[in-house]
C-alpha cells in the first residue's frame, strides 16, 4: 500500500456547504471517494491510499486535471483505491462531486 | 484422552451417564452437586443436518423436562469437538445453515428458560461447527490442546494471497486471525483456559457458578486487550441518534 497527500491550489469553490458524501466501492479495479468540506481556503487536499505502488506521478496528473475542472476549493477528498485505472478514478471523482453537490446541509 | 477419561476428569468417576452415539454424545452428569445435561460431539465431528438436529432435539427435550416447574432448570454442559460443518452438496441443499440456526435458537431458548450453558472445548472448535451451539454458551472453557480456529495459516495464505511467513510473523503480534484457544481467550470468546494440572471438576463448578446470561464477550475482549474496537464501536452505534 502507498499513501500520500497532495494539496492543489483551487480558487474555484462551491457557494454552499454540503454534508460529506461517499461515492464508489473498494473492490478490485475500483475505488471509493470521500468528499468533505475542509478548511476554508483556496486549496484542495487529496489523500490517496492505493495498493499500486510507484504511480504517484500518474495520480498527480489525474488529480490535477480533476482539480482544474471542478470547484473543489476548500474541499478535503480522501480516496481508498483498489487498483482502479486512471479513467475509473476520474469518473468516480466526477461522480463524487455530482453527489456531493446534490445535497445541501 | 479417551472419552471416558474425559468424563471422569470433568464429573468424577461414576457421576455421569452419557450415551455415545457415533460422534454425538448426550446424557447427564453431576456438576456442583446437581444433575446437569450433557450434550456434545467428539472425534472432530463434522456437523451435518442430522447431527445438528440431534443436538437441537436434546436441547429441546431438556427444556421440556425442566419446564413443568418440578425443579430448577439444569445446567447444560456442551462438549465441543468439531472440525466444522459438513462439506456436502446434500447438506447445503437441504439447508445446513437453517439447521444450525435452529440449533442456535434452541440453545437460546434454553438460556431464556433459565438454563445455564457452559461449553467445554475438548478437541477442535472450527468455524461453522463451533457457531451452531458451542459458541452459544454463557461461558466457554478451553481444555488443554483445544484447537480453536477458522482456517489454518497455510490455507489462509493461499486464499488471501498473503505470504505464509508474513502471516506467521503477524500472528505473533495480534490474536485476530491465527488459530489458537489463547487468541480466542484474549478476544473474549473463550472465558477460561484450563490446564492439565487443574482440578477440572472444581473448575467446571466454578464456571457454572459464574456463567451469566448476557453476552459480555466484546467487553471481555476489550478488557483483555485482544479486541479493542468491537465493544466501543457497538456502543457508539447503539447510542447514535
Amino acid at each position, binding site marked *: 500500500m502507498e499513501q500520500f497527500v497532495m494539496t492543489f491550489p483551487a480558487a474555484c469553490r462551491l457557494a454552499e456547504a454540503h454534508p460529506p458524501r461517499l461515492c464508489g466501492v473498494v473492490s478490485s479495479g475500483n475505488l471509493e471517494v470521500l468528499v468533505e468540506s475542509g478548511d476554508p481556503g483556496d486549496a484542495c487536499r487529496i489523500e490517496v*491510499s492505493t495498493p499500486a505502488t510507484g504511480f504517484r506521478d500518474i495520480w498527480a496528473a489525474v488529480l490535477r486535471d480533476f482539480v482544474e475542472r471542478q470547484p473543489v476549493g476548500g474541499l478535503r477528498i480522501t480516496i481508498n483505491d483498489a487498483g482502479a485505472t486512471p479513467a475509473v478514478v476520474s469518473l468516480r471523482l466526477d461522480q463524487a462531486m455530482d453527489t456531493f453537490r446534490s445535497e445541501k446541509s | 484422552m479417551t472419552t471416558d477419561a474425559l468424563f471422569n476428569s470433568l464429573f468424577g468417576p461414576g457421576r455421569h451417564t452419557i450415551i455415545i452415539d457415533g460422534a454425538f454424545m448426550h446424557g447427564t452428569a453431576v456438576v456442583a452437586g446437581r444433575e446437569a445435561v450433557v450434550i456434545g460431539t467428539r472425534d472432530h465431528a463434522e456437523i451435518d443436518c442430522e447431527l445438528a*438436529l440431534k443436538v437441537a432435539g436434546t436441547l429441546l427435550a431438556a427444556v421440556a423436562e425442566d419446564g413443568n416447574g418440578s425443579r430448577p432448570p439444569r445446567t447444560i454442559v456442551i462438549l465441543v469437538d468439531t472440525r466444522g460443518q459438513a462439506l456436502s452438496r446434500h447438506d447445503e441443499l437441504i439447508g445446513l445453515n437453517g*439447521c444450525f440456526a435452529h440449533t442456535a435458537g434452541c440453545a437460546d431458548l434454553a438460556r431464556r428458560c433459565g438454563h445455564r450453558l457452559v461449553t467445554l472445548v475438548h478437541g477442535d472448535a472450527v*468455524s461453522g461447527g463451533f457457531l451452531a451451539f458451542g459458541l452459544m454458551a454463557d461461558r466457554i472453557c478451553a481444555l488443554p490442546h483445544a484447537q480453536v480456529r477458522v482456517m489454518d495459516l497455510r490455507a489462509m495464505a493461499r486464499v488471501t494471497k498473503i505470504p505464509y511467513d508474513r502471516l506467521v510473523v503477524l500472528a505473533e503480534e495480534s490474536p485476530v486471525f491465527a488459530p489458537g484457544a489463547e487468541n480466542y481467550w484474549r478476544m473474549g470468546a473463550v472465558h477460561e483456559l484450563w490446564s492439565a494440572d487443574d482440578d477440572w471438576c472444581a473448575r467446571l463448578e466454578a464456571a457454572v457458578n459464574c456463567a451469566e446470561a448476557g453476552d459480555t464477550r466484546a467487553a471481555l475482549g476489550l478488557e483483555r486487550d485482544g479486541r479493542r474496537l468491537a465493544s466501543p464501536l*457497538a456502543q*457508539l*452505534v447503539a447510542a447514535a441518534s
Partner: protein
Amino acid sequence: MSVKKTSFFEASARTRIARLVDPGSFSEFCPPQLRHTSPHLARLHAPVAFDDGVAVGCARLAGHPVLIAAQEGRFNGGAVGEVHGAKLAGLLDKAVSERPAAVLLLVDSGGVRLHEANAGLIAISELMRAVLRTQAAGIPVFALIGGSCGAFGGMGIVARLCAEVVMSEQGRMGLSGPEVIETVMGVEEFDSRDRALVWRVTGGKVRRALGEATRLVEDDVAAFRAVTADLLAEYGARPLKPSSLDTLFDAHARLTARTRRFSAARDGREIFAASGFSDIDGVPLMAVDAFNRHLMETA
C-alpha cells in the same frame, strides 16, 4: 420502454438502502467520514473502506421506523471483520432499546473475513445472539438477500435466524460456498463452475420452495421494498411472538421431516419436483410471479 428498475444485484449497499427506504429518510450511524476502518486489513496491507463494508442507520419504510444495515458484497465479499461486525451488533443492541418496527439486514456476505478470522467468527456469534435477543424482545429482524455474495458462512446462519428471509432469484443462501466444497471434497461432490447447479442448490427459488426463504421477489429494489412494506404492515397488525418451546418443537418436527424426506437429495430438481412443478427444467426461467403463484396454489 418501461421504467428502469434498480437491480438489487447490481446496486451498491448504499444505493440499495437509498432506494429501499422512504426517500431521504436514511440517517447513517458511524458514517464514513468518521473513518472507522479495519486496522487488521491495514496491517496486512489490504485496502480498507471507510465503512468497513457495511452501512448502518435508521430510516422509514412506508412510514414505519426501521433500523437498517446493508453489507457491501463488493468490498472483500461482504465479509465480517471486527469493525463490520461491531456495527451490526450495535445496531441490534439499539433495536432492543429503541424498538423500531423491524430491523432490516441487507445481507451480502461470504461470512467471516479471513484477514481477521477470529474477530469475524466471534462477531458472527455475537450477531447470532443479538438477533435472537432482538426477536425475543418482540422486534422482528428481516434478512433481505439478493446481492452477488448471497448469505454464506456464518451470515447464512444469521439470515436464517431472522423472522423473515426475503430473497431474489439471484440471491443465494447456504453455509459453505460451492468453491469451498469443491476444493475440499472434489469437483464430483460440487462443481462450482456449474452455476446452474449452484443456483439449484443455494439460489432464491430453491430456498423459497424449501421454505428456507419466506418470500421470493424480482431482482428489483422496488420489489424488495414492496414486500418489506407488506411484512411491516403484517407485523404491525400481529406483533412477533418470541419463540417458545411449542414453536421450536414445531420447527424441529418440520426440519426433521424435511431432512428425512430429502435424505438423499443432491439437486434442487428434487425439491422442485416435490413442490409439484411439472416442468422441472423450466423452473429457473419461470417468472417470479408464476413461481410464487404455483407455490401458493400447491401449499
